[in-house]
């Protein structure tokens, strides 16, 4: 069960009318290494992983949904007042044809989200290493997105999200150490 706080994890301010950036940000919304993939991946892996790391997956998976909300807010703000002409210029004609200005789970090339992006191997090391790789790929994506905009307010929110990926990667690597520990060894003092 979840409790919902009706506010964003970190403020999202967009100061430049730039629907083109909305298209690029979709990579982190419905892309292979995006926040939706991350949230679904972690929350689903919880069931078959040793119980010492279930809580971590719950916490990070939940935070990814908070990030998803921030990305959605960015995309929405960047497109809600765009004219059809602006949408066309931004390369969003296909998106407009399907969804008007609705936010939808696709990547920056318009490919709809698929669960083929995520895995649940059932082996704790395999699953956690996928999570670490996903965090690093998301961090890199945020870097390229920061490069792609000159809107300092948008950059500010993206920098926060990038930093969270760094922290999550460390937490998953700590989980690997917990998984590696030999609890079986009975130590007699």
């Amino acid at each position: 069960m979840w409790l919902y706080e009706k506010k964003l994890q970190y403020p999202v301010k967009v100061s430049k009318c730039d629907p083109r950036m909305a298209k690029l940000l979709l990579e982190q919304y419905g892309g292979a290494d995006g926040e939706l993939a991350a949230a679904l991946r972690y929350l689903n892996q919880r069931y078959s992983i040793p119980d010492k790391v279930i809580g971590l997956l719950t916490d990070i998976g939940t935070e990814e949904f908070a990030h998803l909300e921030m990305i959605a807010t960015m995309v929405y703000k960047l497109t809600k007042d765009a004219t059809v002409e602006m949408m066309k210029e931004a390369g969003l004609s296909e998106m407009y044809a399907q969804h008007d200005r609705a936010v939808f789970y696709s990547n920056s090339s318009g490919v709809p989200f698929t669960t083929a992006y995520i895995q649940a191997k059932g082996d704790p090391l395999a699953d956690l290493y996928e999570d670490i790789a996903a965090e690093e790929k998301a961090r890199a994506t945020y870097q390229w997105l920061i490069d792609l905009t000159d809107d300092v307010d948008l950059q500010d929110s993206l920098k926060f999200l990038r930093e969270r990926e760094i922290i999550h990667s460390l937490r998953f690597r700590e989980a690997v150490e917990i998984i590696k520990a030999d609890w079986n060894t009975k130590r007699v003092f």
Partner: protein
Amino acid sequence: MNDQVRVWYPFIGPNNPCPPIRVKTYVVPPNQYIQFQPLDLPQFTPQEALRYGTLWPALFSPYEPTRGSEGGESTS
């Protein structure tokens, strides 16, 4: 017992439809403990190395099928 096998005891709720598997296992292969392989590790004979898939005993990870042994160990 293979010292690469880790054991954990999942939570067993009161309302499981199937008899619970009380003990679950997974393997932590030796690659997890080697950051960068040191020089001059002891070696298998060439014949052994061909069979095991590695020249170094320190990197060898045995794996036996777990079918049939599931839930074999009991916590109580």
